[in-house]
Every structure is written in structure tokens, then in C-alpha cells.
């Protein structure tokens, strides 16, 4: 019972955050909504027993990636977004389509697999076991991520550097 | 210690290095000179001021390389009304000399010496602010101490005590 209650509370916060993300027009509000979503998702992970994942969800996602977003919003002084101009089509077709699709999926899931339930903390994911998996079974992908990180560093640095001053700077609209 | 009388005869003062140098360069630039209380004052023709300053600054024997001060005295109501006073100092020779330029009371203006000594920047702005003397060619001729919209120049002798209302 506690499990379900907590699931619902966290889930409600999640959904509220996600919806708020869509509704808000200032990017910093959207970013902070996402932080809220991530925080409550960490709660959901805890319910599922993935404590290590929950911790790194907070450390990396909420504490690092979203900080980068907030920084960029601060740096670029991004203001409120303008009202949608061009993609009415996406709005008119996409949103109802998504809603119907989600409902369909929900129905299927509830009908077909509703009998199986997840125990609270059914499968604890202590860091030791995760680490064992990571450094044994998934060794190659793990090493590959380092290359990914390296490429990301280089790419970001190159992209964010100033263009050479010799290049003339033009303005568009 | 009784005061020695001031020497104002240009011929007598010819030996002073600064005057000698100026006279050798352009005798019409030096209007008069005065040696009083061990201080040398040279009156410079207004249009020759900047060149005279450059000359004194770049002198090899006694370079007056340091501009101590620029200020002004208002001799209202006599004419020429303003005396702009430059205090020069020679750091290597430890020698001082005072240059003076007389200006008329109406729309007084004089060449800036900021190109000779950048130090003149604030001094000249202060003189402009408080006496209303324009320094032509100054890079930023605006009030220094008084507010931008202040009326009148407070250190002039005809400035009313309570200011202009």
C-alpha cells in the first residue's frame, strides 16, 4: 500500500513536472521543471530498488546536466519564447496523435501485463553488483563511453570557441 | 628674512635655462617672466603654448618632463581676465618652472596640452569645470566635479555665492 501511494505521489509529481515543462514559456522554468521530474524519478528508482541509479540520477542528471542547461540559459539571456508561428500542423496532428497512441499503449499494457507486479525494492541494485556488471560484463561499452566523452569534450570546445576575429560577423534579422 | 624684490626684467632672467631655451626657439612666444620668491614664472603667448610645452618637455639639459598642476586664476574684472597656470617639474634636474597664459574674459579657450602630458587630462577638465575655460582638442571636455547640468563655473569671481537659480 505504501509502495503504491509513494509510486502515485512520485508519479504525480513527475507528470506535473512534465506538463509544467510544456506549459511554461520561459526556458528556465522548463529546465527547473525537468529537475523536479528527475528528482521524483529518482524516487521511483528507489521504489524499484535501484538505489545506485537513483543516486547518480540526482548527481549527473539533476546536478550536472541540468546545471549546464541553466548555465546556458543564463549565459544566453534566453527570454520568453515567442508564440508558436509555423508548426500548427505538428500541434494539430501530433498532440492528438500522441495522446491516442499513449492511451492505446496504456490500455494494452494494462490488459496484457497487469498481473505481474514489481515488489518494492524487489531487486536491490547495490553499487557493488552494478560495478561488477559494469566492469565485467559491460567492459567494452564502458571503455567506449570514455571515447564518447572525449569526443564530446573536443566537439563542445571547438563549437563553443569564438570564431577567428578575421571572419566578418554578420547578423541575420 | 626680508623678501627679495621680484625680478621682472627679461634681460636679467635670460640665463635661466628654460627662458634661454624658449627665447632661442621663438622670442615672440615669451611675453614676460618673473622671478619671485625663488620661483620662476614665464608668461607664454597663448598660441605658442603647446609648442613651448613640447620644447620644455623634450629639452635635453633640463627636461621638464612632469606636469605637476594646471590651474587658473580669475582676475575679474580686469582684462585679460584669466591666467591659466601650468606648474612644470623636472624630475632629473629637480627644478620647477611656472608657465602662465593670459586669456580674455569672453569665451576663453586655449590649446590642450594633453597630447604633451596625458596628466593634463583631469586638470584641464577641472579648470573647465570651475572656470569655464575651453581646452581645444581635449579628448573629453566635460565637467569633472560638478554635475553635468550645473549652471555657471563656481570658481569665477563673479559667481554668486548662492549659485545661479
Amino acid at each position, binding site marked *: 500500500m505504501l509502495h503504491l501511494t509513494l509510486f502515485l505521489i512520485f508519479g504525480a509529481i513527475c507528470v506535473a513536472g512534465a506538463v509544467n515543462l510544456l506549459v511554461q514559456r520561459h526556458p528556465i522554468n522548463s529546465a527547473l521543471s525537468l529537475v523536479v521530474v528527475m528528482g521524483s524519478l529518482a524516487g521511483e528508482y528507489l521504489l524499484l530498488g535501484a538505489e545506485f541509479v537513483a543516486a547518480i540520477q540526482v548527481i549527473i542528471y539533476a546536478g550536472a546536466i541540468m*546545471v549546464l542547461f541553466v548555465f546556458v540559459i543564463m549565459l544566453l539571456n534566453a527570454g520568453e519564447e515567442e508564440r508558436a508561428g509555423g508548426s500548427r500542423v505538428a500541434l494539430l496532428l501530433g498532440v492528438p496523435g500522441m495522446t491516442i497512441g499513449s492511451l492505446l499503449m496504456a490500455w494494452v499494457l494494462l490488459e496484457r501485463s497487469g498481473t505481474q507486479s514489481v515488489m518494492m525494492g524487489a531487486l536491490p541494485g547495490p553499487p557493488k553488483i552494478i560495478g561488477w556488471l559494469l566492469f565485467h560484463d559491460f567492459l567494452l561499452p564502458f571503455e567506449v563511453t570514455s571515447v564518447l566523452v572525449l569526443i564530446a569534450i573536443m566537439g563542445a570546445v571547438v563549437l563553443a570557441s569564438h570564431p577567428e576575429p578575421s571572419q566578418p560577423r554578420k547578423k541575420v534579422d | 628674512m626680508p623678501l627679495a624684490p621680484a625680478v621682472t626684467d627679461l634681460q636679467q632672467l635670460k640665463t635661466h635655462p628654460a627662458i634661454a631655451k624658449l627665447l632661442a626657439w621663438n622670442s615672440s612666444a615669451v611675453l614676460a617672466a618673473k622671478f619671485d620668491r625663488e620661483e620662476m614664472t614665464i608668461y607664454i603667448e597663448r598660441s605658442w603654448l603647446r609648442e613651448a610645452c613640447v620644447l620644455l618637455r623634450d629639452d635635453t639639459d633640463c627636461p621638464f618632463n612632469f606636469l605637476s598642476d594646471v590651474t587658473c586664476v580669475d582676475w575679474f574684472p580686469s582684462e585679460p581676465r584669466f591666467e591659466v597656470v601650468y606648474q612644470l617639474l623636472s624630475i632629473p634636474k629637480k627644478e620647477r618652472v611656472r608657465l602662465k597664459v593670459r586669456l580674455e574674459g569672453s569665451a576663453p579657450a586655449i590649446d590642450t596640452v594633453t597630447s604633451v602630458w596625458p596628466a593634463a587630462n583631469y586638470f584641464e577638465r577641472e579648470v573647465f569645470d570651475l572656470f569655464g575655460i575651453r581646452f581645444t582638442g581635449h579628448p573629453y571636455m566635460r565637467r569633472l566635479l560638478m554635475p553635468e547640468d550645473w549652471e555657471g563655473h563656481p570658481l569665477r569671481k563673479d559667481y554668486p555665492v548662492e549659485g545661479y537659480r
Partner: protein
Amino acid sequence: MLSIETFVVVSVIKIVIALFVLLTAVAYTVWLERKVVGHIQNRWGPTRVGPFGLLQPLADGIKFIFKEDLTPPHVYKPLYIAAPMIALICALTSIAVIPIGNWVTIGGVHTPLQITDLNIGLLIILGITSLGVYGVALAGWSSNSKYSLLGGLRASAQMVSYEVSLGLSLIGVLIVAGSFSLRDIVDGQGGHFWGFIPKWNIFYGGQFVAFFIYLISAYAETNRVPFDLPEAESELVAGYHTEYSAMKFAMFFMAEYANMITVACVASLLFLGGWHGPVFGPPILQAILPVFWFVLRVFGFLFVYIWVRGTLPRFRYDQLMAFGWKFLLPLAIANLVITALVVAWRA
């Protein structure tokens, strides 16, 4: 085994006590700082309110409450109000996983002197601290004033920079201890080697360098001298909290001091042997002494904080960033590599 209800009740009692103690400790850390810095600087510090000025924190608190609570119109209001709350909540929450002593039995309830013992206690602290950046960044941004924005950006960039070194300095300890649980880490530091040197990580695991890195990063994380640039009053007036007043301003201060205490606690637990120390006497004393040793260490650490404040000038921003990235980070990596090599070699 406790029933869930008793467990919750016991937890709530512990939480209330912990929060009360923490806030009191915050108040008296301020007092201690004023006293110690005062004596360093030839002054007395607070003396008027109560004996030795002991009631000064209380007076300050009351004053803060009654101060004018200004919300300027140019701020972005929701975040302006949320920012100090975020800072304070993050600062107060991380105390939850910090153990301060052994298990005790009070009234038949056997419970640890800790709100909750988690497998990943250390990670929880790191996670919550990493969220603290938001309080600072949002305070700077939402104030909509140049000094605040500069201060906020500086502070958050500084905090994230030193968080890396801080995180990496802990890895040496983790390698030695083999657990994230703070209780396990402390338990691993019991006993002596060579007969007399306590088996604290700072001595035993060869984690002296790590402690040094941790110390410096901790000063930077909590924005303290010589890394107090975000609020360097000589340049940025008050940094990110320039536009704050009354209790909202005090909340940033409370957060800063609560963070200092947390950092001191973590340092004591990870490097200085937690609550280990000579225990003797009757049972009641045996229960209290470990707590006493722990508190002693924490205050020792805080004292060094204050001492440094009374002594050192402040870094310049570029020097601070260069120090963090070019010196501390490589040093932390080198430390962890060497520790890992030794441990792996022995294993």
C-alpha cells in the same frame, strides 16, 4: 525489529532533534566565528547579549525575522523566493545520512545515532550538495541585477569546478573502505597500527593528500576564504545575495554554515576516524563519549575554517579556477591512481 510505526515515530523524533541541533550548531558556529576571528583580530567579538555574547545568535535571528522583507519589482519572483529555499533545503537535508555515533538503546528502542543508514550514504550527500548549485545560480539570475548575476555565475562555476576535485578526493577513501555507507567507512577506521597511531584514513590509507584536496575543495564549495569570491564584497558587494534582505538573506547564511558543518562532519567521518577515540567509564559515558569525540573533530575542522578566514587574503577568480582545474584535479587523479594501484596490487 521495530514495527513500521515505531520506526517512523523514532525517525521523526531523530529528525526533529537533528534539525534542531543543526540549526543551533549553525547559530553557534556563527558565534564561534565571530568570537575566534574577533580574538585573532584583537577584538572581543560579541559580548553584550548574554554571557560571552552567547545569546547573540538568538538576537540576530530575531532581528532577521523582524527586518524589512523586501522583494524588489525587478526580480523574477518565483525563483527569487525559491532560491534561498533551495539552498537551505539542500544544506539541511544532507545531514540526514551522517552518523554521529554508535547504536544506542533508549527506552527499549535500539537505534543508530543517525537518521538513516544508507548503502549509498556518501552518494546521497554528493547528490544533495550538487543540487545546492541551483540555489546560488538561481539567486543570481532571478535577482536581475549585474552584481548578483556576476556573483551567481562565479559562485556556481566555482562550486561545480571544485565539486569535481571534491568528488575525486573521496575515491581514495572509497577504495580503502570498500563501501559507500558512512557507518562502514567509520567502522573500518577503528583500531591502531604500529601500536599507537590510530587507523584513521588520513594516516592509514595514505589519504593525507586526499584530505588536503578535500579540505581545499570544501572551502571552495562552501564559498569560504580564501575562495569567497562569489561574495567577495570588495568587488561584487555581496555577490548573488546582493538583492536579498531579511530572512531570505539569512537563509543563504544558514545554508552556508550548515554546509560548513556538513563538510566538517564528512571530513571527520571519512578522514579523521569518525567517533573513534578512547571510551571508558559507565555505560552512559560509553554512549556519550563517541559523540563527544565526533563533535570535537567537527569543531576542530570548523576552527581551522575560521582560522584560515582570519589569516588569508582572497584568490582572484582566474587563479581560483586555474588552481581547481590545473592543480587540484590532476592531484586528485594522481592520488586516486596511486591509492588504487597499491590496493589492487595487494589484493
